[in-house]
């Protein structure tokens, strides 16, 4: 079975660029994440995604509302808007992995290889769904007195995280490794070099922009 997307490289450049840009925006927002769970400290979205237990999420979010009003408002706004921007990040990120895996599937000659990468591509939809569930779960928790999840619900949340990260990372790593292999054996067209340059340029531009913005924020 072959699944062909016209202009997949163009689409990939677009989704990859959107992913980079939304990632930069979310990173800037994360700089304002602050909580006071015993001591005033910064935290990251990973503290919420990989919390050891449900109480940790509750304490973290309660801690945000323990901050002085101005800082509390900034932190809550930053967290909520990051979760909303994440809804834009998702199609870009999972779309990029999807396109990468589809392209790889297209280039492979063996049936088994094609099938594996087709599955890896389409299973990104499941990862996207897991990410949506995660965001909704966290958004419902953002309140001055968040309700902690029971053990079963929290276990499901953790399983959701494992699926999301497992599926997306597997797709990304396998896709990138395959593309690297094709590059090294010279199995690419001369025309596709332009898209490679575009992708590298996107990485450099967003990277430099990110560094400049953090420097400015520190000052």
């Amino acid at each position: 079975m072959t699944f062909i997307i016209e202009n997949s490289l163009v689409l990939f450049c677009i989704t990859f660029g959107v992913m980079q840009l939304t990632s930069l925006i979310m990173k800037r927002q994360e700089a304002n994440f602050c909580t006071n769970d015993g001591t005033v400290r910064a935290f990251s979205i990973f503290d919420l995604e990989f919390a050891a237990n449900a109480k940790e999420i509750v304490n973290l979010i309660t801690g945000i509302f323990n901050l002085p009003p101005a800082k509390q408002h900034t932190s809550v706004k930053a967290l909520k808007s990051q979760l909303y921007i994440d809804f834009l990040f998702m199609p870009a990120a999972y779309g990029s992995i999807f396109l990468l895996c589809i392209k790889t599937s297209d280039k492979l000659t063996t049936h088994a290889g094609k099938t594996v990468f087709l599955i890896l591509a389409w299973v990104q939809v499941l990862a996207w769904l897991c990410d949506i569930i995660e965001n909704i779960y966290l958004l419902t928790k953002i309140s001055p007195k968040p309700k902690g999840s029971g053990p079963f619900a929290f276990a499901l949340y953790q399983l959701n995280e494992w699926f999301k990260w497992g599926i997306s990372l597997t797709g990304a790593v396998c896709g990138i490794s395959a593309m690297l292999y094709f590059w090294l054996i010279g199995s690419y067209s001369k025309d596709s070099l332009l898209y490679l340059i575009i992708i590298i340029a996107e990485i450099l531009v967003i990277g430099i922009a990110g560094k400049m913005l953090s420097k400015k924020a520190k000052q």
Partner: protein
Amino acid sequence: MRSLLIINQNNMPKNLEITDFTNHPAVKKCMDDLKKQFPGTPGKELIVSDVLDGHGNQYVNLVQKGGGVLGIALVGYTYILEEMGIRFLRLAGTSAGAINTALMTVIGDDKTVPKSREILKDICALNFFDLVDGNAAAKWLIRTFITHKNFSRQAKNLVSIIFGLLAFFVVTDIVFLGLQHTYPILSIATKLCFIITGFYLLLLAALAFYISTLVKRLKESGFGINPGDFFYDWIKKRLCENHVVTVADLNKKASATPDLHLRIPHPHGTRDLKGDVTFITSELVSQNKIEFPKMCNLFRTDINLLQPAGFIRASMSIPIFFESYYINDIPCEDDQIKKAWCDTFGEDNPPSKARFVDGGILSNFPISIFYNKDVVTPRLPSFGINLDDSTPESKTNDAAQWSLFSYIGRMFNTIRFYYDKDFFIKNQVFKKGVGTIPLAKYNWLNFFLTDKDKIDMFVLGAQAAAGFLEKFKWEDFKADRKVMHEQLEAKETAK
């Protein structure tokens, strides 16, 4: 004045004379101010003790704090005390304090003679950098770490550059390897990139190998970067020059006491006033604080088999910086040794080997050495010289923002300082005998002091001593000590 040839860190010969220290305007001002305040006329004498010798010198006990190279400031302090006619009956010290204590004990034939000038001569003739006697890489690392304030950041940047370059070479290899299929001419660049990457990896491998041998050597040397042999030889030579070869010689010198008399009568008279010396060190096998030479009997039945220089070497064995000092082959089955350990520490199984590190990890300021709870009214005070290198920021730093290094350092300092701090909290009167030398702008491990640094530290010591003497009131000290004794007695009676 004898001129002393000093080689500074740039290997340029320089002349440093004792008068550079003692004739410094600030030091002379200290002496002038003290002489003005205490001209010696009746009612205007400096009185710090009731114990005097035939020359009118007053005797105190002295404790000197540890503090690495900050020990030069101790000499400035004792210089002023001696110039004001103060002499020292009992001496104790840790680490750098032990070095000064040792020299004050052995130099000269009796306690009536001032020692600080001779000590100044010895210490300033010493190129401190020679104490850093590890291998070249260790010397370079220590020098760079101490003299560059942002060394940690620079080290992190260097590591980032090394790995960044590696990543760059690997990426260029991959890029050219892929491109050469489309542009065959690039195969030359591909080969060149791979060769450069190969050489770079070889360099990294050599560096990794060198670092691993250094780490292995560090492990084999008991995790001490510098052997400390230079210091040991230096202090041994100083002791020998002053006729101290055995522990018996050391004890003899320390206990040699001139004819003393009391300013005012005291029930105990002067019969039990005898000099001694104590060096504090930490023993890691039995996990005890050891006081040398008093506790020599724990390690040898014949104490003269031990080296007095080893006591000071043991006291100044800064962990990691210097190798530990060992006493091997302790006759732990000998009844005499067993009895000594049992009587001293209540331990039935003496170790066969002892490993000593800096006394400062247990008691960096051992003022409690001279505390006697049975004393109602003291005949002489215990003076202490405190080296304070803390910065104002260290007390106001946001505790939640400490780095891992700061956090561990704070924990360590809280534990190691508390033994002495607890004594001061419970016996506040002893604080009145302590003078503090502010040394915030100096690093205690900076063995690369310039001559100016040495002079400045000496001056700070002298100024601290002058300030202390201006404020010290012997009669108040005695009265407070008496009150303290009465309070203790009342507490014990209430129990």
